[in-house]
């Protein structure tokens, strides 16, 4: 058994691991997506045709859906930017009390399924929502923010702006404060300073966040469905496939277009950053760099932040109110309050809560196992084609959930599982796999970052002391990567728990339904609205609790490590 890097640069075990991962990705990513693309271009008897695309572009509804999807995704990015940029800029570059709380609250929208937010937003900002009822009373006119495409843009922007916020916060805090100071010395200040110096330097973070928002909005199915908007690409793909059938070619054409646009957005973001040097000399925003605001400016900044946070948290407030409301109809606030809905949910659907924990837990577990393995193979071995693995795993980012689900339904149609004889397409295992494949890119990035920060000499030391390669990985590499792995686990879990696009297409039966689908189901009946909201609140709590516990665990580990080094 070779202990150091052998002549080939890899061991047999590493090769086996690589092949296993490649096989998994081939079966559950490449083949299904390839199938979707194939059907979109295939003639009934086989053979290549563009006829389906021709049909697609002949239908003006499809053209309209196409432009609407682009418009909504673009406008959502614009509004997300409006919300995120001031929040990030004020909290990172200025001395503001409660900056950390503001940044934390700013991430909250992500842990709620966007379609649940849409239901709550209807009650607050809809035609007869609280805000419009008050406005109608006072001015005799309301704001049509929830009508049609506006509603989708509003809900999506509020839901996905944290992606921009998080990336910008990181980018801004890594900015060289000398740049800002030089600009100030040369006379730039205020908005000019921000526009000419700070924002351009933070561009990589912004573009990364914005392209993610674009891709996510393009892919989202639940929000348009709940808001009764059907003339967009994702709902059209879903409607064609579920009501006309899995053989309808137009559904596949839409899928191919959705993939193309996701790829385009990611490629554009890569292109925007290419050939420019954003490296800065000094790392980390030292406290010196944080500027003070004059009292009047500070007051204005706080006012703005409070307004934005209120807006951002309104879905949460709405859903919380709804979950406790007896009847909430055509009134600013519910008529009376009750805890009955929570009792109903706990008695009725503990299974759904467990399903979410099980599916998302399993998916996140696979993700970090694969993520760690891929990271190790790439950074620590010289396996040929190892970067292909990274590329394949990351490619999942560009595959919309609806498309992946359509691919699964088509590829595994009629396939029975061993022993139970159950159909794979109506089994929850497919749901776990879909979650795992789609969340792998996030987990992979975290694991890569963690391993990059780990110097190879630690493993070499262990191996010099007689540990085998496996033992060195198990005792040294993985424990030291724990932070990154856990971060990857949490991201995978969180995002899988709130996703509906693939869930709604792949969930076969009520008993196998995760919470996100359960909420959607509950919301389909008069008596179920409050119960659905209660389940939504529980989902938010579970995800929030998971995030909090993992932070505690990380901090605990850091303290442990400190103590150990001191003891020795």
């Amino acid at each position: 058994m070779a202990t150091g890097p052998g002549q080939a640069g890899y061991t047999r075990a590493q090769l086996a691991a690589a092949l296993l991962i490649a096989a998994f990705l081939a079966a559950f990513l490449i083949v299904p997506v390839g199938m979707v693309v194939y059907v979109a271009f295939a003639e009934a008897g086989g053979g290549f045709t563009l006829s389906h695309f021709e049909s697609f572009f002949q239908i003006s509804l499809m053209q309209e859906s196409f432009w609407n999807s682009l418009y909504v995704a673009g406008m959502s990015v614009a509004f997300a930017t409006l919300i995120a940029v001031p929040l990030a800029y004020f909290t990172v570059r200025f001395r503001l009390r409660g900056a950390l709380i503001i940044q934390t609250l700013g991430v909250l929208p992500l842990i709620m399924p966007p379609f649940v937010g849409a239901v709550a937003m209807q009650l607050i900002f809809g035609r007869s929502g609280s805000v419009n009822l008050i406005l109608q009373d006072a001015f005799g006119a309301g704001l049509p923010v929830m009508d049609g495409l506006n509603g989708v843009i509003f809900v999506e922007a509020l839901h996905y702006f944290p992606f921009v916020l998080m990336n910008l916060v990181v980018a801004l805090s890594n900015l060289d404060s000398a740049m800002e100071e030089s600009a100030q010395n040369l006379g730039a200040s205020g908005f000019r300073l921000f526009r000419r110096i700070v924002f351009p330097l933070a561009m990589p973070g912004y573009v990364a966040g914005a392209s993610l928002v674009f891709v996510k909005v393009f892919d989202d199915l639940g929000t348009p469905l709940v808001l009764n908007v059907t003339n967009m690409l994702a709902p059209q793909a879903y409607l064609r496939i579920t009501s006309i059938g899995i053989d309808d070619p137009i559904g596949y054409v839409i899928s191919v277009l959705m993939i193309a646009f996701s790829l385009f957005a990611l490629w554009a973001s890569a292109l925007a950053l290419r050939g420019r040097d954003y490296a800065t000399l000094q790392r980390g925003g030292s406290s010196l760099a944080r500027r003070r605001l004059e009292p009047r400016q500070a007051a204005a900044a706080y006012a703005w932040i409070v307004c934005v946070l209120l807006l951002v948290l309104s879905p949460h407030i709405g859903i919380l109110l709804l979950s406790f409301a007896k009847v909430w109809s055509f009134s600013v606030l519910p008529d009376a309050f009750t805890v009955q809905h929570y009792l109903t949910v706990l008695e009725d659907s503990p299974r759904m809560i467990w399903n979410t924990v099980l599916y998302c837990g399993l998916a996140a577990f696979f993700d970090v196992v694969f993520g760690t393995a891929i990271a190790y193979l790439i950074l620590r071995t010289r396996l040929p084609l190892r970067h292909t693995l990274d590329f394949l795993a990351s490619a999942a980012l560009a595959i919309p959930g609806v498309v992946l689900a359509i691919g699964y339904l088509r590829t595994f149609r009629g396939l029975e599982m061993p022993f139970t004889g159950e159909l794979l397409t109506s089994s929850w295992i497919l749901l776990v796999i879909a979650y795992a494949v789609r969340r792998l890119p996030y987990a992979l990035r975290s694991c890569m970052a963690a391993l990059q920060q780990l110097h190879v000499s630690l493993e070499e030391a262990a191996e010099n002391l007689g540990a085998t390669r496996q033992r060195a990985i198990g005792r040294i590499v993985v424990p030291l990567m724990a932070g990154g792995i856990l971060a990857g686990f949490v991201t995978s879990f969180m995002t899988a728990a709130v996703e509906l696009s693939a869930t709604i297409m792949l969930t076969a039966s009520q008993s196998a339904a995760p919470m996100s689908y359960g909420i959607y189901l509950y919301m389909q009946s008069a008596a179920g609205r409050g119960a659905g909201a209660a389940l939504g609140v529980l989902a938010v709590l579970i995800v929030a609790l998971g995030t909090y516990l993992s932070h505690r665990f990380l901090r605990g580990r850091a303290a442990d490590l400190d103590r150990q080094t001191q003891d020795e």
Partner: protein
Amino acid sequence: MRLSSLARRLAGAALLGALGCASAFGQALSIVTSFPKDLTAVYKQAFEKRNPGVRVEIQNKGTSAGVAYVREAPANNKPDIFWASAPDAFEVLAKDGLLARYDGGNPAVPAKIGSYPINDPRGYYYGQALAGYGLMWNTRYLKAHKLPEPREWADLVKPVYHGHASISSPSRSGTTHLTVETILQGEGWEKGWSQMLQIAGNCAAITERSFGVPEGVNNGQYGIGLVIDFFGLSAKASGFPVEFHYPSVTAIVPANIGLIANAKSAELGKKFIAFTLSDEGQQLLLDPKISRLPVLPATYARAPAGYPNPYGGTIKAKVNFDSELSEQRYFLVSAIFDHAITFRHKELAAASKAIHDASAKLAGRNPKAQALLKEARELAFTPVVGADKVKDKAFLALFRDTKRDAAKTRQITGLEQYWNSVARKNYERAQELATQAAAMAR
């Protein structure tokens, strides 16, 4: 705690969970249904209690999605039961040979409601509950907007209701399909579509799901909704400030249950159907959260006061629903509705607003402007497919066949595109004409 041990524990827990699920695998009954969780949960619980060891799996699909699902499931792995409102969906399934005959109905259920057979005479499916279609409204909304309570479909074409009503799309909701078909059969093709277009022009939204309508009325987004009765009745029973009324052009139609051909658990399926038709199974329908009309006349004796009783003459159903006719043009009606109404709703609503405004301004004066207005009405409220065309067998067959190759896809999408653009052009022109007419009033 070391991470590797954490990982091991996690993996262990996951494996246990998976095994737990597999071991719970007893006798399973798989039901495809369009009914909400409130209804299915009650039946699931009651049936599982009576039959220990049996597991009822509910698969929620919209009616048309459910039909597609049953059709596409592999022959040796079909679900057991199809349970939904629309009789025409059952006709579609029966025609495709996807339903199995079963002769275990409850003899106490009458053969007909009005002139409509409750059970399929061939025994492919059974009426399990009765449903009428009607109008539901939010009392607070009507009061705030000072709107009168509507009594008939025809009321909804009035200008006062512009922007206050809502309806779902028949391609997405089997119950809406029935409502639209009821109006078409009650008023005739041309007049029915004209009324439908005028109602749709007054709608604030064409919702995606059938439940979108009652939901919107419940929370006050819309004032009035065109819904199946139990949506209105159950919302009222759940405490929402809503009312429900059956207009005279309504049909009482059974919601059905049927055994799927080659079902995996056929015996269990038969048992379930018999249970839903039994005295006990029928009584479950009276649950306030469900609020459906039983097919068993005796059950009404146990219903609360004021519960509508189709056998007792409290509902006047003028239309004798012809499900054969409905089935023949099922996809066609959906396609026309979607391309002329759902997807062109913005233009239709704008045209109808302009027409209302113009007619209010003119108040019957100025004959030249009246002629323009009449032309605008005709443009906006004439169906894109004429009555003679629907009698064409070849034309109907094009939409009935679900197998679509490239050529056929192109033919159908070409037609749909044509309707879509004609509708748009007509609505835009109607709006122009109405605006011209209104300008002449000054």
